[in-house]
């Protein structure tokens, strides 16, 4: 979480675990460049006596019975129980200093890996604070909302009768009837409206005053000036009418209170809508498990998630949430990782596989070893990354920033000029007209709509992308992604699965398909070569029962030879066949076709005779074809880049539906190729601007880092817990190419939304302010009531927020490919 609610800086006594206020710490000790604070001399003595050893809870100032372990709740020396979070971070370097606990028996020692930093600052894990803070913020928002509504109702209760009185003035009978009481009504109105200004409108006046003292202006300045001017003018007109020319005075008390009521209502509704805008993030935070079942000392213990430490063995039963990130030790299951990857189909997990915290275990029970906890988990990092993106500003917002910093003073100046124009050149009663138009200008101008236009859409858009497993680093990446012309796809691991699979079994005369595959697979069983592994796995998947080979020999660079079922079997490349004197002519036709298809043929000879070919290939991911089609439908040129030879590359490209292939590109040349594509673009000048084409590069984030950095937008395909890849502008958590489509679609939708908001906000102000100033009066005799101006102002910011919230209903086009 970005904002850390301030916690008083406290340090943990490494001996007893008690929290210590550094300003009151009795004693300190320095070891390895780290300063430790102690609750008492006794602890320091024990710590120092420990020499190079680790501090131990047993060597505590407390009685040993008081020390529970692994202990994260410390109640030392009769002190109140203090939740001492597991992760202790050095200020500004949360990753640097960490105190964890091993998963050993009760009484385990704190395991420290503080790297020479100066102090242990006690603070809760960032993520935990984030959750707490999100809850606190929600409550605060609810309170603000209720307070605003109370003030709104009060202002309305006072304002409505005044408004009726104002309307009564238009009815001749009532005007005559009320005439003798005009002054009394005015005085009563002035008194009645004061509490509205002081209570309901207090925040506007206070904020305006505070701003004024700081040489700052804001929306409240305008509201305060507008309503204040209306009230003050009306009061002076009632109390000292002789100051104005006869017949030129008017009363605008109802304007002051109704405008305050409307703006309060607008802000209250805006608050509600805003809290919906950040719903995506809240949803992520709420979805984490609250407790974990850890196995310590052979016993199952339910502990709060904050107390799980790296190295803990955690048990997860079907239907439960995986509490933290880790690697499966025992058991198999299908796990729904949609919270992180956006992919709703559960993923099969077996020992050694990674599991992601907050994913849902579907079928079987398993135990796993916790590898990442607290702020390091994939979910915590996703939340952190999304938040950072939401705080950034896309280039499109820069103009608004310039405008909004000059906005309020400019409106004040326009209001003064309006007053002067009406006062000097307007029709009688000039003072009334001048005041009404000035107040209308102040009240109609809405810097909020402008200021909200970009960030609110960005917040919703980035959150929406994250829901679908697409992490957009910042506003600039989002804006550029929406304008891309070309998408370059790395082949291996991006379009394809990145590991070879058995694709074809072509027996020659005298051999059956099943027999050929069985013989080849058994011969390959002891080989560690990935191609051999693919054949063995493929045979198993086709239900072949595999025996053990005899007299197995691996021939490096060629293949394997072994005796299977009493027959001498050789599996390998052409060189192996030639080496064994196997006539190659029979293989030729099949080999050539397979190579054309981008597959790697492995030749099988049995007892010196050509038996057939088994082929392996790196196959397409299930949804690659659909993703490429979708990218093209979005108007993008799709290019494949690979280090493979042209024949294989073209075969894969053909299957994926890609026309343009850059083959045999060395890893270090990838960035240069991206640069070339960027420079190609004159025909796309109108889309990309600056005469260049905007190129997105999709790769695995590690080997492709330079190309990802060179591209206008780098998309890294991440899998499992490896999210938030540094070189990438966009990280596709789900590992599917379809994420690129989602990223571009979300970016385009968000940018379109921002443009709508900006257009609406600019047009509103550009038209509204002159109308309020009375420019329509000479032509149409129309003058805008400040009440209508106030309503328009309140509506404009609600409109912007509501329009941004439409993005919440955005759904990317579904991938049609069949997924495993």
């Amino acid at each position: 979480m970005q904002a850390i609610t301030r916690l008083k800086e406290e340090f943990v006594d490494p001996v007893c675990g008690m929290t210590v206020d550094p300003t009151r710490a009795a004693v300190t000790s320095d070891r390895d460049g780290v300063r430790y604070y102690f609750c008492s001399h006794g602890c320091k003595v024990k710590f120092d006596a420990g020499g190079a050893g680790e501090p131990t809870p047993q060597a505590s100032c407390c009685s040993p019975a008081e020390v529970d372990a692994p202990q994260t709740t410390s109640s030392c020396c009769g002190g109140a129980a203090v939740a001492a979070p597991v992760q202790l971070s050095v200020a500004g370097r949360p990753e640097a200093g960490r105190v964890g606990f091993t998963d050993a028996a009760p009484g385990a020692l704190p395991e420290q890996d503080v790297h020479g930093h100066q102090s242990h600052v006690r603070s809760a894990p960032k993520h935990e604070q984030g959750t707490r803070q999100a809850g606190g913020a929600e409550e605060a928002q609810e309170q603000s909302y209720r307070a605003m509504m109370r003030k709104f109702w009060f202002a309305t209760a006072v304002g409505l009768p005044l408004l009726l009185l104002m309307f009564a003035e238009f009815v001749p009978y009532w005007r005559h009837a009320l005439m003798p009481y005009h002054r009394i009504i005015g005085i009563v109105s002035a008194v009645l409206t004061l509490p509205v200004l002081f209570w309901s409108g207090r925040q506007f006046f206070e904020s305006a005053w505070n701003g004024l003292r700081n040489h700052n202006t804001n929306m409240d300045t305008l509201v305060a000036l507008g309503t204040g001017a209306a009230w003050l003018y009306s009061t002076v007109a009632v109390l000292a009418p002789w100051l104005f020319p006869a017949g030129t005075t008017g009363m605008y008390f109802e304007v002051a209170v109704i405008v305050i009521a409307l703006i309060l209502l607008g802000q209250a509704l805006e608050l509600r809508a805003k809290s919906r805008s950040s719903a995506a993030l809240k949803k992520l935070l709420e979805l984490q498990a609250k407790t974990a079942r850890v196995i310590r000392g052979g016993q199952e213990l339910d502990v709060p998630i904050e107390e799980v430490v790296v190295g803990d063995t955690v048990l997860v039963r079907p239907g439960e949430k995986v509490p933290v990130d880790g690697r499966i030790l025992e058991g198999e299951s299908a796990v729904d990782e949609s919270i992180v990857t956006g992919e709703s189909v559960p993923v099969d997990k077996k020992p050694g596989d990674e599991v992601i915290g907050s994913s849902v275990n579907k079928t079987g029970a398993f135990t796993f070893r916790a590898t990442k906890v607290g702020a390091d988990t994939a979910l915590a990092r996703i939340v952190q990354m999304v938040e950072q993106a939401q705080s950034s500003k896309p280039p499109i917002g820069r103009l608004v920033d310039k405008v909004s910093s000059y906005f309020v003073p400019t409106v004040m100046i326009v209001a003064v000029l309006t007053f002067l124009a009406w006062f000097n050149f307007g029709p009688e009663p000039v003072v009334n007209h001048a005041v009404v138009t000035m107040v209308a200008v102040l009240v109609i101008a809405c810097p909020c709509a402008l200021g909200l236009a970009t960030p609110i859409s960005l917040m919703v858009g980035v959150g929406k992308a994250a829901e679908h497993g697409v992490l957009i680093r910042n506003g600039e990446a989002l804006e550029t992604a929406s304008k891309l012309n070309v998408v370059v796809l790395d082949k291996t691991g991006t379009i394809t699965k990145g590991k070879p699979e058995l694709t074809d079994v072509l027996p020659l005369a005298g051999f059956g398909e099943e027999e050929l595959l069985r013989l080849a697979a058994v011969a390959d069983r002891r080989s560690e070569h990935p191609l051999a592994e693919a054949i063995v796995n493929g045979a198993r998947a086709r239900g072949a029962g595999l025996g053990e080979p005899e007299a197995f020999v691996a021939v490096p660079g060629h293949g394997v030879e072994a005796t299977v079922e009493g027959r001498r079997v050789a599996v390998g490349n052409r060189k192996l066949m030639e080496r064994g004197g196997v006539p190659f002519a029979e293989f030729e036709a099949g080999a050539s076709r397979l190579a054309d298809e981008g597959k790697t043929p492995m030749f099988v000879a049995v007892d010196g005779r050509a038996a057939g070919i088994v082929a392996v290939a790196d196959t397409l991911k299930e949804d690659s074809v659909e993703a490429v089609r979708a990218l093209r439908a979005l108007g993008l040129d799709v290019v494949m880049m690979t280090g493979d030879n042209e024949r294989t590359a073209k075969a894969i490209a053909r299957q994926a539906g890609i026309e343009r292939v850059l083959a045999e590109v060395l890893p270090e040349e990838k960035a240069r190729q991206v640069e070339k594509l960027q420079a190609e673009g004159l025909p796309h000048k109108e889309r990309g601007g600056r005469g260049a084409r905007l190129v997105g590069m999709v790769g695995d984030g590690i080997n492709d880092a330079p190309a990802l950095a060179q591209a206008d937008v780098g998309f890294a395909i991440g899998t499992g817990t490896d999210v938030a890849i540094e070189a990438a502008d966009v990280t596709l958590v789900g590992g599917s190419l379809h994420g690129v489509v989602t990223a571009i679609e979300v970016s385009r939708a968000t940018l379109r939304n921002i443009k709508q908001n900006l257009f609406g906000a600019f047009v509103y102000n550009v038209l509204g302010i002159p109308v309020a100033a009375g420019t329509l009066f000479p032509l149409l005799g129309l003058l805008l009531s400040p009440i209508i101006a106030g309503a328009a102002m309140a509506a404009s910011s609600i409109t912007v927020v509501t329009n941004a919230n439409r993005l919440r209903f955005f759904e990317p086009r579904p991938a049609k490919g069949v997924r495993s």
Partner: protein
Amino acid sequence: MNTTQIVVTLVGLGVIGWIIWYFWLWKGEAVAAGVGAGGVQEVDVTVRGGYQPAAIEAKAGQPLRLNFTRREASMCGEEVVLPQFGRRAHLPENTTVGIEITPQAPGEYEFTCGMNMYKGKLIVR
């Protein structure tokens, strides 16, 4: 134009001149960040109609904690954004919220409210 009109016009123009000077041309003084425990630079910033102090001087390469306390009911200051650092924080009223950053390169960085109305400046040397 009669005398009243001339006087009112002159007053109006004077007000315009004052607005330009007071809100646009006035420059505040920067406050240097103090160094606290663990070498962390620290500044308390009050959010009340703007940021006090609105200009903060800090050293490059050292962690800096900005403790924001919003002391107003107005919603304007409810969010603070440090765009160059990718940080955004909600500021509940009367609660201190610390944001820790480590400015690496010297230069001027801004912090603003969510709508870019309140402006503060971080001068890193």
